[in-house]
């Protein structure tokens, strides 16, 4: 669950960290890790750092999109040099699920080439299949181990990132469009619910797949 007040601090901390190490960003893989669990964020961050990756850890899909600059309201503010080479996200999160985040990334002409890996504590075949069909590179069953991280690092070779390879995975055929100019209703594209074991989430926190006011409350675009 996200902690109130944690985000502002975290962003500032990330700013400082990246300013300090700006000179050596070039060669290191930069991973954006998304997980609402504080414990899991700490662990994944360490797993990635020990594997020589730079890490930005955020606690929700929304924050991930903000960091990427896909949320028009809080744009990237000059983080453009901090290219994200890989996104690793938890599946079950309140608000926007990892699946919904995956879709948003793959729908973006700017970011669709970033490999996305999904993590989940639940080993559900339909869930795994859905994610892979939507363009996820891999699906890791939690708890995440060092061997998992070593494996996914391979997805971030420059050759892969440039997008020369078109994987056999089926990706949605969409015209590329700039996500930041799309209306809130784009979130309705993730309206098909899982038939088995949907993500448990406290009912008071609205799912991002809802069509109206919860979406507005999340302030995805500046058209408020």
């Amino acid at each position, binding site marked *: 669950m996200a902690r109130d007040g944690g985000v502002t601090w975290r962003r500032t901390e990330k700013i400082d960290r990246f300013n300090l190490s700006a000179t050596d960003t070039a060669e290191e893989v930069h991973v954006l890790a998304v997980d609402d669990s504080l414990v899991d964020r700490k662990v994944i961050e*360490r797993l990635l750092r020990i594997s020589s990756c730079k890490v930005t850890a955020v606690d929700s899909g929304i924050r991930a999109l903000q960091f990427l600059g896909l949320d028009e309201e809080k744009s990237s503010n000059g983080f453009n040099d901090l290219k994200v080479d890989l996104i690793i996200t938890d599946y079950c999160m309140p608000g926007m699920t990892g699946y919904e985040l995956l879709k948003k990334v793959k729908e973006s002409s700017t970011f669709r080439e970033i490999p996305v890996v999904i993590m989940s504590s639940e080993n559900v075949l339909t869930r795994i299949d859905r994610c892979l069909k939507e363009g996820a590179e891999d699906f890791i069953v939690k708890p995440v181990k060092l061997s998992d991280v070593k494996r996914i690092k391979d997805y971030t070779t420059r050759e892969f990132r440039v997008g020369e390879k078109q994987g056999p995975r089926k990706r949605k055929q969409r015209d590329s469009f700039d996500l930041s100019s799309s209306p809130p209703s784009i979130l309705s594209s993730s309206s098909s619910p899982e038939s088995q074991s949907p993500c448990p989430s*406290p009912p008071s926190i609205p799912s991002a797949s809802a069509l109206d006011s919860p979406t507005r409350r999340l302030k995805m675009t500046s058209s408020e």
Partner: protein
Amino acid sequence: MDLVQLQRQLVDYRTSLYHEGFLDEQFTQLKELQDENNPDFVVEVVSLFFEDSERLLNELSKALEQQVIDFKRIDAHVHQFKGSSSSIGAQRVQKLCIVFRNFCEAQNVEGCLKCLQQVKHEYSIVKTKLESMFQLERQILNAGGSVPV
């Protein structure tokens, strides 16, 4: 107690925690992520786990005291607890959470209440044991020794 005795005591204690199912291989994985540059990693993660768990147990207690039980909310909290306990290797707590979730799905209040008691109990045991283990480690370090792997 001299250093060698302390170190032996730690190894025995740690072994027993695995043997009795309090900890599983995920805890070992966490230890492997600790090094001279991050000597407190395990303690830090486990401390986060303690904070998070206390919050979740509070939420669960409150939720089960309500007039109208919100099973979805309870299930969501238990799911989180299951996740975090799994991430640090607290095996007994994790297994209880699975049972707990089954009772949530069945909307069985009695079952949930019983599980809450059990999970609180198991959590407090593993917390005490981990704290004892960390204390042993500190004693070894203070005595100028190194913590056996």
